[in-house]
């Protein structure tokens, strides 16, 4: 769908690494150029027309994000540099001050490093326990396993909505309900979910959500931290400086601004935020439900073609997102990626920043194909043709 909007797709290239980042449509690129050429001034700083224009554009993106994820208040939307920064802020600013020795954080083995390492600082610093909810034989997170793991010491569950290796969609709404009945917070890593399906924070009832613009047709260096307002009020700024204070005289006399400015210190990625607004408009015009359905159909088409290939070992045959993770018998994943690269096909090889492969699947590295709405059935045919011929892979991998 919509291929004509992506300048890169006019080249002879097949891009299957959308889990890493997405391509950018021309409207987003133009919007960023518009900022740099027509009103390239700072936000929240000036009293002249250009500065006013920037403020409007910047805050307009906040409005768009709020509607996109159905948050209640504009103050609940904080711009960050990406998912990683948002998750670090949630852990350091909210949970580190709140949690006490013996309190428990629950993650899963398939979380991305960005949703593991920030939590790993708490055991040393605060005596907090970090444990993992077991996954089922498909590496799925089931509500039953969440039920089994939670206990009175559990204070927060932090999980991806869609994982970046297995691509399973987690039952977030049920998990939130169960968690809240037990006074547990839920932090949702939406990096792979928000770009690919409708995420409604009010309906899901998540306490925090983090996601990145660059995986959803937006620019790099921009992301969102959503938090329920009453919680965000207690999130201590981890970065201090200009733009976030009302006044300061002595170390004891610092007065901070209201939300969300309090959490947006320093000059933000203004061009990025403005470009992000355009990306949201673009996705809205396509329709998130339509995007999700298209990706599921496309994935099914790919899986059905890969299954008969005896030398392809698919790690996640089942999955409702656009992610397919596999290995070619006796060929190192990176060599498969290099082989496909010779035919201008971009795929990712590696551990994808998650421990799941090593700890649960028993392989260290895989090839990953991650689809987006601009991928086509014809592209899948080209890929499958190249993967069908085992001898060719071995012959051409170096």
């Amino acid at each position, binding site marked *: 769908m919509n291929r004509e909007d992506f300048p890169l797709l006019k080249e002879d290239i097949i891009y299957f690494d959308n889990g890493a980042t997405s391509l950018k449509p021309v409207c987003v690129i133009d919007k960023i150029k518009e900022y740099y050429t027509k009103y390239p001034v700072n936000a929240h700083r000036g009293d002249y027309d250009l500065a006013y224009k920037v403020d409007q554009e910047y805050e307009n993106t906040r409005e768009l994000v709020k509607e996109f994820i159905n948050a209640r208040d504009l103050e609940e939307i904080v711009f960050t540099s990406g998912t990683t920064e948002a998750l670090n802020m949630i852990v350091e600013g909210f949970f580190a001050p709140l949690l006490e020795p013996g309190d428990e954080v629950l993650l899963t083995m398939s979380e991305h490093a960005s949703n593991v390492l920030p939590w790993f600082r708490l055991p040393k610093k605060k005596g907090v326990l970090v444990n993992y909810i077991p996954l089922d034989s498909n590496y799925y997170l089931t509500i039953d396993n969440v039920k089994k793991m939670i206990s009175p010491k559990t204070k927060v569950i932090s999980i991806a909505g869609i994982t970046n290796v297995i691509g399973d969609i987690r039952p977030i709404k049920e998990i939130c309900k169960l968690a809240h009945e037990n006074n547990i917070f839920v932090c949702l890593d939406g990096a792979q979910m928000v770009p690919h399906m409708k995420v409604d924070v009010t309906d899901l009832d998540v306490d925090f959500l983090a996601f990145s613009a660059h995986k959803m047709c937006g620019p790099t260096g921009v992301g969102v931290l959503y938090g329920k307002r009453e919680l965000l009020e207690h999130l201590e700024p981890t970065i201090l400086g200009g733009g976030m204070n009302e006044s300061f005289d002595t170390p004891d006399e610092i007065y901070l601004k209201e939300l969300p400015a309090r959490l947006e210190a320093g000059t933000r990625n203004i061009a990025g935020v403005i470009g992000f607004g355009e990306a949201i408009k673009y996705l809205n015009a396509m329709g998130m439900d339509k995007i999700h359905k298209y990706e599921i159909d496309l994935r099914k088409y790919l899986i059905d073609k890969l299954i008969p290939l005896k030398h392809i070992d698919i790690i996640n045959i089942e999955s409702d997102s656009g992610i397919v993770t596999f290995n070619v018998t006796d060929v190192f994943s990176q060599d498969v990626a290099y082989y496909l690269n010779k035919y201008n096909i971009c795929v990712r090889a590696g551990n994808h920043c998650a421990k799941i492969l090593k700890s649960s699947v028993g392989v260290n*590295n895989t090839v990953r194909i991650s689809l987006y709405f601009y991928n086509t059935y014809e592209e899948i045919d080209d890929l499958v043709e190249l993967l069908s011929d085992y001898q060719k892979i071995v012959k051409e991998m170096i």
Partner: protein
Amino acid sequence: MNDREIIMEHYQHPLNRKKNDDPMYLHVNTRNESCIDNIDLYVKFNDNIIEDITFMGEACAISISATSIMIKNLIGKTCEEALNYIREFYKMTNGEEFNENILKEGCAYSDVARQGHRKTCANLPFKGIEKAILSHLR
């Protein structure tokens, strides 16, 4: 054999790929930035001479074969000769003039190294052995 055949031969039948718990061997780990090629080298020195090298690890065809070729060419060399070999290898992967007589099979990577990240893969075992030699000399 052409370059590709040399590389494939060393990939499919690498020399001295075995785990090594012998305390006489110095252990170094070497991995590339994307953390996907990951090789453990075990090096035994006899005074100034590299007496033996073995390795273990999971890596791409280029890294594995380069490790094997490195082992073949560096065993028996003095530390200085080995460092000289490593320097020539880096010159080749940087696209500079290099001495083919010193590198022998190592020359097989002169094309591969031009393919972007593949250079890092070919250099990987050499970065590791370089670390081992320098720490031995210290």
